[in-house]
């Protein structure tokens, strides 16, 4: 494992370029520098994990890449084009289930597809069926959202985010609320789906093992102000098993670095 000094992405072409992004949240009581001059480049097909304690601005950075939040300074380029708002080429899978309760599982997956004008209805249905099958929920096609377990909901959310075929998938602690057994299964699924589709993924988490299990690269962030502290390459072969000893040894070293950044913040 090497801790590279610069957050560069090697030789592959950059899919996403984050340049000098800063964001400050001001309210009556507080003034929080969520991000301070953050730069990062993500290669096409790369799986990057943003890791850090809460308050380090990792979710804010994800929202800026998604186009949901505007940075105060700096800019984000996707395929060389300035990101000015949300778009179907960068879909987000949220922390909690953002599924629409007025639609069933199939209807949720169809939502984004219906906003793609170049597809016929038959194609949309077929794609939605395919993605529900990919996440193993073809039998629950017409289930109401509240009838699904937490893990199943996030699978539907994953299918909904994948179905419109985004170039970039942004995942904001999507498994945070799930139990460990469900999560382990989803780690396998997400790796399999990523290896098949080779989407560019940015995955936000505060779980070190989760980051080591999923990421090609781990971008460790430190809080107040939110900055990139260190970047780690994880050259472990896929599929990675989150319970394997190699993975655990990586995780323990990164956890030590995380502890350093958290202590630094606490002493401020």
């Amino acid at each position: 494992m090497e801790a590279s000094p610069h957050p560069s992405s090697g030789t592959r072409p950059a899919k996403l370029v984050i340049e000098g992004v800063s964001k400050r949240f001001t309210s009556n009581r507080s003034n929080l520098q969520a991000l301070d001059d953050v730069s990062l480049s993500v290669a096409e097909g790369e799986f990057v994990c943003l890791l850090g304690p809460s308050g380090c601005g990792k979710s804010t950075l994800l929202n800026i890449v998604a186009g949901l939040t505007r940075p105060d300074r700096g800019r984000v380029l996707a395929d060389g084009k300035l990101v000015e708002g949300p778009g179907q080429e960068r879909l987000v899978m949220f922390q909690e289930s953002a599924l629409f309760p007025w639609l069933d599982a199939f209807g949720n997956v169809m939502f984004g597809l219906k906003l793609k004008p170049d597809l016929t209805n038959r194609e949309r249905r077929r794609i939605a069926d395919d993605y529900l099958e990919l996440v193993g929920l073809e039998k629950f096609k017409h289930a109401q959202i509240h009838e699904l377990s937490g893990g199943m909901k996030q699978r539907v959310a994953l299918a909904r985010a994948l179905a419109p075929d985004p170039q970039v998938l942004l995942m904001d602690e999507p498994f945070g609320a799930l139990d460990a057994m469900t999560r382990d299964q989803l780690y396998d699924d997400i790796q399999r789906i990523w290896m098949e589709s080779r989407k560019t993924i940015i995955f936000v988490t505060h779980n070190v093992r989760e980051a080591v299990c999923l990421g090609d690269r781990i971008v460790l962030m430190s809080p107040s102000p939110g900055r990139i502290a260190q970047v780690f390459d994880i050259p472990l072969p896929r599929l990675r098993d989150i319970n394997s000893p190699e993975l655990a040894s990586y995780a323990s070293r990164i956890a030590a670095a995380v502890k350093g950044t958290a202590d630094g913040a606490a002493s401020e």
Partner: protein
Amino acid sequence: MKRAAVALLFFASLIGAWELAVRSGRWSAVLLPSPFFVAEYIWGALLDGTLLESTWVTLKRLLVGYAAGVLIGLPLGLLTSTSQFLEDTLGALALGFQTLPSVCWVPLALVWFGQTEGAMLFVVIMGTVWSVIIATDHGARNIPPIYARAARTMGSEGFHKWTRVILPASLPFLVSGMKQGWAFAWRSLMAAEIYVTILTGFGLGHLLHYGRELNAMEQVIGIMTVIVVIGLLVDRVLFSPWERFLHRRWGTNLKET
């Protein structure tokens, strides 16, 4: 089945107690007619057509006024939920007028429209529209923001976002608002009909009013019964299916059965 039997027993004993009270002779038979006498009136009015005709007149006014109130109130409520300016102006106005009992609109309606159908509609709309505005506004504000964010990332903007996300997401609030609007509309129409005689059609309220003038208490109580039954039927036919649908979709208020 058991619940129906319990309800039946309850109402039967209520009517039985009423009949016993009449037979005790403590009250004048004119002031407190026997339930059978009331039933006889309802039956007679059904047969000679007066009841159906006035029910139709009343329901027509109600449905037209209510539909207009909802059609006006719904978009206005969505609007007030989006802007601080509209909330402070239109929203405050709606809140103020909602507290005004809608029968208070009757004198104004009479002066403006005379003894016409227009006056009736005006009172019903004034009774409905404010509470629909407030309920819609409340509903749209209480939508979890994550729905709108998720929709935006999937490319839903503008009209699509309003019709496919904001509106369905606020449905549970809308239905309770529409139910409240209905209750207000029904009450204001009855008040207006009792208060004002409109020559183009005698509604249930007029029958009630003339029952009093003729000292025909069986007519007064009979019409009251019909009004209660209509209220219950509307609740069962118009709102219950909606509420059941919403509970099924949202998974709220599911009874253990």
